[in-house]
Each structure stands twice: as structure tokens, then as C-alpha cells.
């Protein structure tokens, strides 16, 4: 009986989910103003968007703010002048796009945000940054207990610029402490999110504190910059753990294959985030209710785990949609940007 009920319920849910999808009107064109299109993360977000838009027969265009908030506003203005049906925006900065949302509202253009929340937004598709850091922290704790003699002295190659990246670092330390309570963050660095800056600041920090045994990076460039500084200092990777975040491109796959200390990667599946953002845009276009925060899933990948989610042929990677779509995202984040203030 119970089984029957659940089957009935499931099929009902399926029909419910499928019906509106068929009844939905499709927007003709969607415009996406990205933050930084030359970055691997956003390239893969765009790939996911393109794939989904093609499936649904939507014309999809991208503009790049190239980290310049003034250019972001200009690009969004261009899109609205062109008459796109829905706008997707990855804010260069959380406060800076408030006027843009105001303009879109007076222009009756619905807006989906990707990545960062903004005051007065309708909906945002984003991962839970704190949770992402937290679960990779837990895994790092287990590893430290098993392989590093239970000590955890962390060099955080961080990026104070964005609340998202601050949350990742906080989550990592909190997760780590659930397993290794005496874990400490020895250095809290600003690696600028790019590899050469990360390398430079890490070199100085490693010179000061030789007892560091965990490198945490808020993205792959940061963790790799930290690891390269370690190698350049002539140290062995035997008693080191490197933890990256993002899984944004090819670099982490290369590192997990070749660097003995690079054991944990908190994958954030940018392709999935793009896919979800298009779905959210369609819903907004149809005036459907959407949650304020649509969570896109993340997962810590240990060792060879990445092969579950990606195919890699030495020059490109392709996502395994079935595996990623099967991941369950939490309803709510443990901590958000609002908790930082």
C-alpha cells in the first residue's frame, strides 16, 4: 500500500512537473551578461546555458563585463534596447547592479541572477558557498586524521573581494574543525583569485610558517598557485594536503592526476549552474513562482571521484549530465552572505 502510494505520488509529481513544461511559452531570446567570460568557470557556465537554450529552442546571447561594473551596466542596457525577453546577470559586484535591476523592472524585463545575491532581486541561481567549503573541510579533516597525524595548519589562499569566496573559506575551516577541533588557519591570504598573484603571496607565507600542512584555495587558480609556491620552495608533498574549489576547468583534473598532495576538490559544476539558470529564466518569463535562491548542487570529489562527473580527452572535458543531475542540492544554505554582515 505504502509502495503504491509513493508510486502514485511520484507519477503525479512527474505529470505535474512535465505538464507546465509543455504548456510553458518559451522566451524567444535570453541575454546573459557574465562577469568575466575569459575565466574557465564562466566559460563552463555559458556552455551549460547554451546547451539548455538549444534544447529549448531559445536564442541565447552573451555579453562580457570583463570585471568592469560600468561595462556590465552598459551591456545590460544594450540587451534591453535590443529587446531580450529575459536577462541573466552574474553581478560583477553585489551592490553595483541595484540600479540595473531598477532599470530592468521599469522596462518589464525579468532578471535571473547567477552567483551573487542582490537586494531587490527576484531570483538567483547559485551554489551554497559555505556548504561547499564545509563539506570539503570535513573531508580534509578525515584525511588529516588519517594521513597527517591529526594536525591541520591551514594556509587559506582566499579572496576577500567577494562574500562568496569568504564564505567558502569560513565553511572549510568550520567543516575541518568538526573532525580536527584544534585546526588553525595560520595564514589568511588575498591571492586575488589568479594563479601568479596566489603564487607570490603564498611564497612569502610559506617562508614565514614552515609548519603549514594544508593549502586551501577558494578556486583552482588559488590552490594551484599555493601548491606551486610550495613546490618552488623545494618542499616534498608527502605531508601536505591541497584542497581546491570550483572544478572550473582542466587545471584541477591535471593536478589530481599528477600532484600527490592534490587530493580533494570541491566541485561546483558550472555547467549545471548555467543549465539551471536557463530553466529559471523560462519560469520567470511565464510568471511562475520561483524561490529566491535556487540552489545548484556541489560535491567534494576525492581522488578519482571526478571521473564520475566528467569525461576528459586531454584537451576538453565534458560533463556527465546524468551523474550531475542526480546530485541533490539542499533546500537552503547553512550560511549565506547575509550572515557575514
Amino acid at each position, binding site marked *: 500500500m505504502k509502495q503504491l502510494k509513493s508510486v502514485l505520488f511520484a507519477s503525479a509529481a512527474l505529470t505535474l512537473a512535465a505538464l507546465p513544461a509543455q504548456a510553458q511559452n518559451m522566451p524567444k531570446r535570453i541575454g546573459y551578461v557574465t562577469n568575466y567570460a575569459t575565466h574557465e568557470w564562466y566559460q563552463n557556465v555559458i556552455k551549460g546555458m547554451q546547451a539548455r537554450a538549444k534544447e529549448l529552442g531559445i536564442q541565447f546571447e552573451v555579453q562580457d563585463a570583463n570585471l568592469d561594473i560600468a561595462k556590465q551596466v*552598459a551591456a545590460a542596457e544594450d540587451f534591453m534596447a535590443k529587446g531580450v525577453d529575459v536577462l541573466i546577470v552574474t553581478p560583477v559586484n553585489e*551592490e553595483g547592479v541595484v540600479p540595473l535591476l531598477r532599470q530592468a523592472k521599469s522596462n518589464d524585463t525579468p532578471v535571473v541572477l547567477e552567483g551573487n545575491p542582490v537586494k531587490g532581486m527576484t531570483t538567483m541561481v547559485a551554489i551554497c558557498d559555505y556548504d561547499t567549503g564545509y563539506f570539503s573541510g570535513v573531508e580534509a579533516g578525515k584525511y588529516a586524521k588519517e594521513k597527517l597525524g591529526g594536525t591541520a595548519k591551514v594556509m587559506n589562499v582566499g579572496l*576577500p*573581494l567577494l562574500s562568496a569566496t569568504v564564505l567558502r573559506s569560513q565553511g572549510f575551516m568550520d567543516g575541518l574543525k568538526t573532525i580536527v577541533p584544534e585546526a588553525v588557519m595560520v595564514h589568511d591570504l588575498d591571492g586575488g583569485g589568479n594563479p601568479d598573484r596566489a603564487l607570490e603571496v603564498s611564497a612569502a607565507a610559506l617562508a614565514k610558517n614552515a609548519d603549514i600542512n594544508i593549502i586551501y584555495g577558494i578556486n583552482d587558480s588559488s590552490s594551484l598557485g599555493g601548491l606551486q609556491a610550495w613546490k618552488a620552495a623545494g618542499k616534498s608533498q608527502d605531508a601536505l594536503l591541497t584542497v581546491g574549489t570550483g572544478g572550473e576547468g582542466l587545471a584541477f583534473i591535471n593536478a589530481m592526476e599528477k600532484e600527490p598532495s592534490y587530493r580533494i576538490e570541491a566541485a561546483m559544476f558550472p555547467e549545471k549552474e548555467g543549465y539551471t539558470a536557463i530553466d529559471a529564466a523560462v519560469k520567470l518569463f511565464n510568471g511562475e513562482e520561483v524561490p529566491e535562491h535556487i540552489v545548484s548542487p556541489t560535491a567534494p570529489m576525492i581522488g578519482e571521484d571526478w571521473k564520475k562527473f566528467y569525461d576528459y580527452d586531454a584537451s576538453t572535458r565534458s560533463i556527465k549530465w546524468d551523474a550531475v543531475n542526480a546530485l541533490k542540492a539542499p533546500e537552503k544554505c547553512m550560511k549565506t552572505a547575509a550572515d557575514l554582515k
Partner: protein
Amino acid sequence: MSHTSMTAAPDKAESSFFARLLKRQEMALFLCLVLVIAFFSFTAENFLSVRNMTNVFGQASLALTAGIGCAIVFISGEVDISIGALLATIALPLILIMNGTESLVLGIGGALLFGLIIGIVNGYLTAYAGINSLIVTLGMMFILRGGVYLYTGQRAIPDDAALDSFIALSDGRLFGVIPYSAIIAFGLLLIFAYMMQHRPFGRQIYAVGGNPEVARLAGYDVRRVKFTCFIISSLLATVAGIILAARVGSAQHTAGLNFEFQVVAATVLGGVSLAGGIGSLTGMALGVLILQFLSNGLRGLGLPTEWQLVITGIIIIAAVAFDEAKRRRAIGG
């Protein structure tokens, strides 16, 4: 650089020759602008719509306003590359004061006061202490940018006051068509272009930049003229910063990053020489508009950033090279 033959010196015949030459140069720039617009109106969707055109003028208001100051400093024979960082810095007093007092006037007053102080420091160190202006303003750029990062802890400061008058600077349009920011920019351009061409102070700036020795002999206070030019530049960058703060509704620590490169490129493209004494504000304005329409059109074509960068780079070099060739021929002939 052959200064003497090119300056708007008091010599009557020469200045009218100079004026004629300038006219020709501006004509070429104007044709170039028309060409850019014509090209994109055929290729880029929606390019010629009123909405898109007025958008571009609104977007150009930043570089146009700051470009006036940049051009004036260039003409005086110096450079100011601190303007991008200043754009971000003055948003702090502006937004903080508005959040505290709910007054746009006080906020703008605070921003202008801050800009004035920076202009005085830049001007003093260059004109009176005698340090190379590229060094002074490069140092100032680091100090201001780092200062903003330090003060804000790399967090943008939101405009909590949300005064209607301030929002109008971003969203407001005269008759619902022309953005207020564009009107401010073109108003300032008219005022300063008049000053440069028809007031004694404008002539002094050309003379000082063209040949400081001659200017000194003519009885001009070279130091005071240069000092004033830096103040003008900082104040105009402040105005640009206020418009930008309105457009992004906050004080942004990364605002105006690389803005100085854009403005310098547009100014030189507009025929204002880095060597001093040569160029006009009209030329600068045409340079700004060419680059703005170009980037708007390239966006309209849906070209990715990398192509936009490559094409803009090529056009800047080609335009300046063409301009130089023309100028040399003009001198030779």
C-alpha cells in the same frame, strides 16, 4: 618633438594656421565617427534605434567628462593617470555623506572637496616640487586604489539613502529621451571648449604646454597654470565618479579600473598630443565617441571580449599612426 612650429603661440598667423589644421583634423575624426556609425547601422541589429543611440551617449558621459580634464592636462604638457582610481575614491565621501545626511548637495560637495584636495596634491608635487607627473599620478593611483581597498575592506558600500535626485543621475532622461548624465557631460564640454579656445587661460595652457620657455618669457606663470590644470582634471574626474556611482548605485572599490587607459587612448585618438600644446577638446570628444560607438557596435555584433579587445587595439594604433602621418605631411607641406 617640434614644439615651436605647432603651438598656438601668440603669433597671429601661426595660430590661425593651427586653427585651420585643427579643423581638418577634427573633420577627419568626424568622418571616422560617421563611418563607424554607418558600418554598425548595417551590421549590428538595433544599432540605430533612438534607445541605443541615447544609451551610448549616457555610457560615454564618464569618459567624456574625465576626458576633458585629461586633455587639458595633456595640452599643458603633463599627464594624469590617477583619474581611474579617483573615480572609485570620491564615491566614498559621496555615498557615506548621502547615507548620513540624506542630502545630495552635501554628498556632491564632499566628493568635490575630496577631488579638489587630490588635484592640489597632484598639482603641487608636479608643478612646484618638480616631480615628473607620470610618477606622481602613478603613485597617487596606487595610494588611492589601495586606500579604497583598505577603507572598504573590499566591500562595496550601498547607496542606502536612495535619493530620487541621485537616482535621476543614472535613470533620468530629459523628455524621457536624453540621459541627464549625457547633458552634464556635454554641458561641461561646451564650457571648457569655450575656455580653451576663447579665454586667456586657455591660451596660457596651450602656450605652457607648447613651449614653457616661451610661455615664461611671455609672462605666464607656468607653475600656476599647470597646478590649475591638475585641479581641473581631478574635479572633472570627480564629476565622472559621481555619475558612475549613480549608475552603479554604490561606492565600488574596483570602479574605474583601467579607466585611465580608456580615457588616455580616446584623448590621443582625438588628436591631443602627449607632448603638450597640441589638440582640442572637440577632438577628444570625437575620440571618446568613436571608441564608445565602436564598443557598443562590437557588443551588438555579439563579438566576444577577445575580439573586441583586439579590434580596439588595432584601431587605436591605426588611428594615431594615420593622424601622425597626416600631421607630418601637413608640416612638411
